[in-house]
């Protein structure tokens, strides 16, 4: 998948969360996403960035702008070396209306993007990759 642009942003403080989502706004705008798609990606980024900062003890987000023929996309890799998630299944199936802690952030973010991948285990940190295509 041809990556036309890529860089890394730190996720240590809550100000980094704001920076990250503002940057994702800019990326999705430049990629020509519609307003709703932009907002979904920005919101997903906010959720995942917060997870990394608040539950992951800090981490980074690597962003990529993808071009596949005429298709353009934005991919984000959120990485932290935190405690990891013990029960991934549970974390991902937090329902519609329950809204406590990290669960909603993960399952919610999953619904806002086209592709979602997660790797996490206790003591091994967490890595979440999300992609949205125009």
């Amino acid at each position, binding site marked *: 998948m041809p990556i036309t642009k890529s860089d890394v942003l730190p996720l240590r403080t*809550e*100000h980094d*969360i*704001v920076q990250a*989502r*503002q940057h994702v*706004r800019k990326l999705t705008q430049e990629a020509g996403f519609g*307003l*709703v798609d*932009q*907002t*979904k990606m*920005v*919101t997903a980024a*906010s*959720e995942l960035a*917060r997870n990394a900062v608040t539950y992951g003890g800090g981490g980074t987000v690597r962003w990529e702008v993808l071009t596949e023929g005429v298709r353009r996309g934005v991919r984000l890799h959120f990485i932290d070396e935190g405690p990891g998630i013990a029960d991934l299944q549970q974390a991902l199936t937090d*329902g*519609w*209306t329950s*809204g406590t802690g990290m669960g*909603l*952030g993960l*399952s*919610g*973010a999953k*619904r*806002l993007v086209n592709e979602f991948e997660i790797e996490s285990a206790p003591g091994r940190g967490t890595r979440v990759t999300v992609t949205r295509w125009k």
Partner: protein
Amino acid sequence: MDRIPILRMGEFLLVTIQVDMHDQLALTLQDDLTSSIQRTGAKGVLIDISALEMVDSFIGRMIANISSMSRILDARTVVVGMRPAVAITLVELGLSLAGVDTALDVERGMRRLRDSLEDAGVARADHEE
């Protein structure tokens, strides 16, 4: 900006959120509003989010909290001006903000607050008789 200003309009408090809030700012707003309601005895709170391009679960929960807490303090909260893209995203995220009262804009929001005040006044009057 380290705090979001809260304006007082008669018996109501008006908050206009125009910045991309970091988490602490949102929490500070929550605290400031509740102490304001208590201090001023305000009967209603109007939160204008028409400038917000994004509401995530943190801000969503802040709004829900403000609504619940103000109700305990005998004030009503109305959230106005949510943008279509934000509404669609919030729903997809899984937040319905069920207990939060909403209105299309500040004018209608104020009308909603005034009406509810009247109803409350009538109810009180009935009670006293």
